[in-house]
């Protein structure tokens, strides 16, 4: 079982929080801080596993994370999950984001955290891995966006225009997340 999925940037700002076990908001923030503290001080070329922090964890839990450009993708899992499998799942997640956002960068996650959640929902449900086939996930995501667009229809048009106008002054996007290939799994 996956206990939590947290994405934060190099400064520890949360970009996505998904807990599969209830913690109140303060606790969640504390966990994010602690995890950031644990993860951020590690070198780049050390292993991606970490015995859990004191807040989230216990002996059965592990933190498995990956660092892409400005973002850390952190999964907290128990011993029923395969460590390398989860690493691969993170890769699938990030690659899916990359496809869905077309060269994903931190700003995409900042402004579209809802969409990131919807993508994550296709991968993981209730702490269990649901789907790992990327094409399947992407198809489903696209179908749902289509559905959303069809619902917005005429009524949605003005809002879209305005939001497009609002987006004109977006700052220059920082570099994309690089996607190294993971040889171990597939």
């Amino acid at each position, binding site marked *: *079982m996956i206990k939590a999925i947290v994405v934060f940037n190099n400064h520890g700002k*949360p970009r*996505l*929080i*998904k807990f*599969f076990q*209830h913690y*109140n*908001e*303060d606790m*969640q*923030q504390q966990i994010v801080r602690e995890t950031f503290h644990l993860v951020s001080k590690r*070198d780049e070329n*050390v*292993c*991606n*596993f*970490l*015995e859990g922090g004191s807040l989230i964890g216990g002996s059965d839990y592990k933190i498995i994370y990956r660092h892409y450009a400005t973002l850390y993708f952190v999964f907290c899992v128990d011993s*029923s999950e*395969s*460590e*390398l*499998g989860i*690493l691969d799942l993170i890769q699938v997640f990030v690659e899916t984001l990359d496809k869905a956002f077309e060269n994903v960068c931190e700003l995409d996650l*900042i*402004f579209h*955290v*809802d969409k990131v*959640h*919807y993508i994550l*929902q296709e991968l993981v*449900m*209730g*702490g*269990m*891995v*649901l*789907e*790992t*086939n990327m094409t*399947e996930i992407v198809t*489903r995501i696209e*179908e*749902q966006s289509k*559905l*959303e667009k069809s*619902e*917005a229809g*005429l*009524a949605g048009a*003005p*809002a879209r225009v*305005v*939001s497009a106008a*609002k987006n004109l002054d977006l700052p220059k996007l920082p570099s994309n997340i690089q996607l190294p290939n993971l*040889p*171990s*799994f*597939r």
Partner: protein
Amino acid sequence: MALKKVKGSLERVFDKNLHDLVRGIRNHKDDEAKFIAQCIDEIKQELRQDNIAVKANAVAKLTYLQMLGYDISWAAFNVIEVMSSNKFTFKRIGYLAASQSFHEETEVLMLTTNMIRKDLSSQNQYDAAIALNGLSCFMTPDLARDLANDVMTLMTSTRPYIRKRAVLIMYKIFLKFPEALRPAFPRLKEKLEDPDPGVQSAAVNVICELARKNPKNYLSLAPVFFKLMTSSTNNWVLIKIIKLFGALTPLEPRLGKKLIEPLTNLIHSTSAMSLLYECINTVIAVLISLSSGMPNHNASIQLCVQKLRILIEDSDQNLKYLGLLAMSKILKTHPKSVQAHKDLILQCLDDKDESIRLRALDLLYGMVSKKNLMEIVRKLMVHMDKAEGSMYRDELLSKIVQICSQNNYQYITNFEWYVSVLVELTRVEGTRHGSVIASQMLDVAIRVKAIRAFAVEQMAQLLENSHTVASSAQRNGICEVLYAAAWIAGEFSEHLRDPRGTLDDMLRQKVTSLPGHIQAVFVQNIMKLYAAILVKYEEDEDNDGIREVSDLLVEKLPMFVQSGDLEVQERACCILQLMKYVKKLQDKDVSCADEVAALFAGELNPVAPKAQRKVAVPEGLDLDKWINDPPSDSSDDEGPANSLFIPDDSRMMNESMTRPVVEELSDDELERRREARRAETQNNPHYLKLGASAKGSKYQEVVNVEDIPVANIDLSVPLYVPVTENSPQSTKRLSDKYLEAERQARKRDKKRRHGKKSKRRHKSESEEDVPVVHKVDIMGGEMPEGATESGDEGNLELDDNDPHKLLDIDLDRPLDADEKLPVRTHRIVSPSAEDRPVEEKKKHHRKDKEKEKKRKEKEKKKSKKEKKRNKSGDDSAHPSLLIATELMSPGHEAIPSPGEEEEVAPPSAPVKKDTTPKKEEPKDDLDFWLSGQDAPVAVEVTAPEPGAAADVDSDAEDTSRHKKKKEKKAKKEKKEKKEKKEKKKKSKVANDEDVDSGRRDGFEELNSDGPPLPPMSSYRLLAEDSNIKMTYETRVQSQQGQQLIVSVIFTSLAEQHLKSLEFNVMDSLNTKMDRLPGATTHDGVPVPFQLPPNSFNEGQFAFQVQSINVAQKLRGTLTYTIKTEESSTSEKLDFKLYLPCTAFLIATPCSSDAFARLLQGGELSSKYSIKLSSGGAPFSHVLAKVCFYGHFAIVEQIDQSASLYSCSTQGHHICLLVKANGGGDVSIDGKCADGSLLSNVMEEIKVTAS
């Protein structure tokens, strides 16, 4: 209309959307909190508006704020509003917010049951998916109970997208509602062989999660998983299965033997590291579980170790980490194989990665030897100096202690070295392992006699420097060592070089800032020291010294008397009084040193943890016998006992203050005390009460222990502690001998090393030359600390709070009749319970009856809509008027609903399993599967499969073929199956070879019907127009000869709400509909619900029928109102309700004897015959149709003919003989007492079955 929408969204443009919020927060870096507070105010206003789009926008923003740590639980109700929107876009926003912020304690969740149910059954698969996703995050016991059945239905959905989610969420349901596990498990098992890999993977996932905590219940699934493992190519599934096997093998070693070969193959063949790693892990688990005696055992171990070495040597740190992790598992059972790779592991100790170092540390204890211990420890000490973070440092510290002390200090050749290491460890900053060090010091000092002098010196130094330890910021951890230091210095004070100085050290003011239990030890050992000093001074006749030291004590001890700690205070008081007495004697020039020393005479020997248990029970002592007869009745004399007790007790207290309690308390007194104490603690709110279960036994024990009078032990009889052969004592002796021999050989080398160390550490050069005999001393009856305890871990006991504890459920036991998922029942308003149709009663979960009632009560309050419905229900006091209820799930019965094209099974049918033989079957299968290890693997693997597949197939068939109503018939068929299985069993006993063929035969037999049966549904179309569709089914029950219930499913096809539905039928002379009291025959019966768009609901109507031997056709009308936003139009739909004669038949099982008697009895005078053409369908299909539509039960079937029996609600017996004639014709001959009934029934059969 559209204009209005556009206008609404134009207004919306000016609201902040999520984008604006995020941008705003980024632009207000300095006053973020203020900006967000302002935004929350805006959101609150937006939530007050009616426009759902505005609300959804607000909720989306809240979800973002929740991520930033803002509590949004206040908006829970608004979230639900958004969730209930019809639009997917908004619904998704709502569910996301809910999944992020709702949890089990969210109260509004109880409002969501019906909404979620509606979403689950939505035609749009994405609606259902987001509902499932959301539900997985906020499942509550209530939701789990109420929705279990709906999710069960979704497990058979045609869409894999929904199916896999439904399967996964079952796990969450089991956690919250363990009763669902058994009824749902057969279907879950089916899903292991689902054609869709995603669904399969989900099912594997769920079962693995379940099995992880309660593996023994899932052993019987091993063959299925084995097949999956050998056939699946999905790495995710493989990993899960292999992990599962890892959990199962400890329970069934035979399984391990079977696994080794395919796993080894996988290890050789796979290129996926993750899979390789899990395979190795499971092989290790297998090897651990096998008790040895496998010839190729070593080969497997070697293979694993070699592969792991490759992993560890890999440049990828992750693989290195995992390799070490797996290595540590091998180490436990096969230390030799790991030791071969010592170089590699020691290398990892220097890795820059802390995680890897930690893993290497775990392995270290297997790597040490006498030769390298000192070196390794020094390395670790260096690491400890460099380490940042107390976590790693603590880990290092405990590892040092662990590797040194392991196996009763097996690898330590020089205890002086070890003691100095321990002393050095006390300088580690901020460790929380102070007590570990302390216990090591005590252990070594007590058990290694030769080291005492050295240890005492070291301890004296520690005490001298105690101010640094005691004053350091993190003193809580490390000051524990002072406990050991004080005790050792006091107990072995004869070794002290300067006892007087140490005494001064122990009497410093600083000491009072130490924790109580340490101070207490200080006080006690001050006295011991004093005694030693006194003896020495008296020998020297140093009277000044005596006076001085006595004065010092009398002067200093009061600081302990003032201590807040009771123990310290008590001891200090006691000793102070003693001192004053001693001083009085000294003033009279009486030498009392010997007497004082006598207080502490004798050596304290360590007692092994198990020593108490090993004390033999003396002959003639029966521990289970009552010493005194139990009190006859405690309640009667409680009053006087209490009043007696209070003065009694105070007297006791006074006495115990002055003298130790050695008196014998009478049993009455004891009992009274206990009683009173129990009563007192029970009523005392400040007393922490034990859990209910503990109260009975544990608590009482505690009390008893306290109240047991202390009796003198006759010390003339030595305590005899029997020691078993394999107890560590014997091994230790061996190791001691070994140590002795080794010491001789390595004396010089050791001395040199020891010298270096001691020079560096304490500069005492004289000791260098002293040849010390470091011998781990064994005291009589003593057992080494921790030497055996660590070995047996015992079974994995689940915590009481762990939800998995409740899921420890036997899954092989056949289901009881009442073990069903709770199904939303139709509420029947009737004065007596007997009016309920049988099948509805069945739906009630036994245990849930009470709960169900309460839930209904609760639901009554839930929504206005429902309230209205309830009102109408309560108003109608007419007997046996049936009113349908809440929104129903699809597939509640086999409803051909637009959303669910496929045949949906009734909830209970798949759950029904055969009785006894089934119980044995899986076990037998497993045993058989496991035992046949000599036969070629391929055969073993395939052997159980046909049987299993057949079971599944036939279950599925049963499921689709029979409605709940026909359960009896289903049972009948299963009985036949049972017989087959019994036959199979017999043949198994006769010849194992035959089993296979027997099974295959069975399989073929069961599948002999050829193509699967066409779907059959008892629901027929009643009427349909563009807005609504009605299908109906008839139900009867045997006790209600005249009553017939028509259950109508109203399915809305309209875009609008349908309301004010009224169902009316023109009564005939023979058949009358039950109406509301006071209504005329022209009034319809109001349907007690409205129909939202794309929903359906079931209503039931009762009819009174006079004669049942003719089919009835009733004309009727449904009126309803279509409600749009502006207007409402009323519509009318005419229908003809056809009530066939077969509707009044009940398939009743009948034995062939009874059947023969019926036929011979002559009572069944009428005969009738029909012929039908099967149209090419196999005989079994025709038979199934006759049974299904005609409501008949099979009495006997011989080849191509069968006898059927049924009984009408009014007690007519109908017997049929069905025969297949050549050429696809089937002839049916019937006999019945009522000719017209018989002919009508058979004509109906002719129509329906052909």
